């Protein structure tokens, strides 16, 4: 039972890290960025190239990959979302342009790395097994949880204590009001994309390390699970995404342990449906989500 809990927290930390970026952009733009999973994937590949081909250590490669992912986020905003600002159909159009860019990113990855599974070279992350009570934890698992938590703490600090964070929260509340207050809304949105994609890329690297596999379509399944997480947590709520990420990680692990692995993915969707039908705003989301 303790072992399951540890596995659940480990899995949950990656889900949470992925979901946090997802929900941040939704909070600010009211759009689901379906290219988030493509940045997740490209960030991981970027780190792979650094480590595997350029022999950079993972400690250096990870931050660089994170910055690279952030830059991808800014590019994404520029080509897929910014041109739609002010358009009446921007929600649907934004969803579709994000799908388009995700497809482009996937095409690039497919061309550069091929469809097969790639792996980080052996020994990228020093692995040792530790005994914690009745459970076994690997240093990799600890490292991933630690890095995820650190990144989420940094994000929380950023949102709560810095000027940029206040501006982001203002734009999330009402872009029109923020503009009247003199906030450069476009710049704030670009910053949000940088942060969101940086975290998404980090999640990708950690995911690839954790499961020792990486391919251009790795983002697809995580993306859908990420949707379940942000719905459970409440769309637009960062603390909600964190909470829900860990919750779903734990639920998934315990479901596999007691019901078998075929229910693994189904349980996330069961959660998704239940939340949407019973309490659409999720755990910590804002109210007013149904139509009149």
């Amino acid at each position, binding site marked *: 039972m303790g072992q399951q809990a540890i596995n659940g927290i480990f899995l949950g930390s990656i889900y949470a890290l992925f979901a946090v970026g997802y929900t941040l952009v939704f909070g600010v733009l009211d759009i689901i960025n379906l290219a988030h999973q493509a940045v997740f994937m490209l960030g991981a590949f970027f780190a792979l190239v650094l480590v595997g081909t350029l022999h950079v250590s993972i400690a250096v490669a990870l931050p660089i990959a994170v910055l690279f992912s952030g830059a991808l986020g800014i590019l994404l905003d520029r080509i897929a979302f910014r041109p739609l600002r002010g358009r009446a159909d921007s929600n649907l159009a934004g969803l579709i342009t994000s799908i388009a860019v995700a497809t482009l990113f996937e095409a690039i990855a497919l061309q550069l790395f091929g469809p097969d599974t790639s792996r980080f070279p052996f020994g990228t992350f020093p692995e040792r097994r530790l005994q914690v009570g009745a459970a076994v934890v690997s240093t990799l698992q600890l490292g991933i949880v630690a890095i995820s938590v650190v990144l989420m703490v940094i994000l929380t600090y950023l949102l709560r204590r810095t000027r940029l964070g206040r501006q982001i929260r203002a734009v999330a509340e009402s872009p029109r009001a923020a503009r009247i207050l003199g906030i450069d809304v476009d710049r704030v949105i670009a910053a949000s994309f940088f942060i969101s994609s940086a975290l998404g890329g980090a999640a990708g690297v950690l995911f690839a390390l954790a499961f020792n596999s990486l391919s251009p379509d790795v983002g697809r399944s995580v993306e859908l699970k990420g949707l379940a997480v942000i719905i459970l947590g409440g769309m637009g709520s960062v603390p909600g995404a964190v909470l829900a990420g860990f919750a779903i990680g734990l639920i998934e692990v315990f479901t596999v342990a007691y019901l078998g692995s075929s229910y693994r993915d189904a349980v996330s969707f069961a959660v998704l449906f239940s939340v949407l039908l019973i309490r659409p705003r999720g755990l910590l989301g804002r109210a007013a989500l149904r*139509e009149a």
Partner: protein
Amino acid sequence: MSTLSELFLTYQSLIGFVGIDALLALSVYATLCCGQLSLANAGFMAIGAYAAAILTFHTKLPFAAVLLASALAPAAFAVPLGLPVLRLRGVFLAIATIGFGEVVRLALVNWDFTNGALGLVAIPQRAGLLTIYLILGIALFFFARLRGSKLGYALDSIREDETAARTMGINTTLAKLSMFVFGAALAGVAGGLEAHFTFMVAPSGYSFSRVVDMLVYAVVGGVATYVGPPVGAAFMTLLPEVLRGLGESVGLGPGPLRLFVSGAILLAVVLFLPNGIVSLPLLVAAVRMRRQRG
């Protein structure tokens, strides 16, 4: 002579796929035309495909009855799904329907009766070009007659402003549900046709990517009228074939090329041609008129 018949066979299947993809694009259009983004149709397609395949293997029903079943089976699921889900605001409807599609796929992966992830193979080819295009024709006829009808006006008004539509006396829930069910039936029959055209059904063919493809066909073609989605489907299905030679000369593999072209066209259409390919003649005419004047 065998190369000639091979050639015809290749094009025959391509033309068949265009027809099936056109039906799928119309199935997504069914809900888009009243302003609802439903992404459940891969799931509905799977239900229709599997229902048809199972009936073909285990009964002696004529193909027409099998196709009818492939339309009715997903429609039956669409009613209880639609009632709660259509009340959700835009993006939440999209997510809920994505969830449904995934649940269907996962259920099929775990269903031993149909070989789980491997699916069913060696389905006899009962669907030919004639059947596919006949059904497409019927679907197009429905949409053509819908336009300008009482229900058609109601759907237009729901798309524009659902609250105002309700105060015009329109039962918007019923109208949306009707199109949701109709879209499910279309996707199901397309699934049934495809199953008997490609000899197999497998859960991997009905993933989220599948419904994204359907959405792309509709959007690229144009969702202002029912003509757009089939045009978009034809365009997006034929284009990779046309570009295949080009890709090889540039050194791009067919996989990445197809994805790249897909993504680039989608992006370009949404940004520069928001009403889709079918609005291109209008745009050209407008530009020409402006040039004549100024």
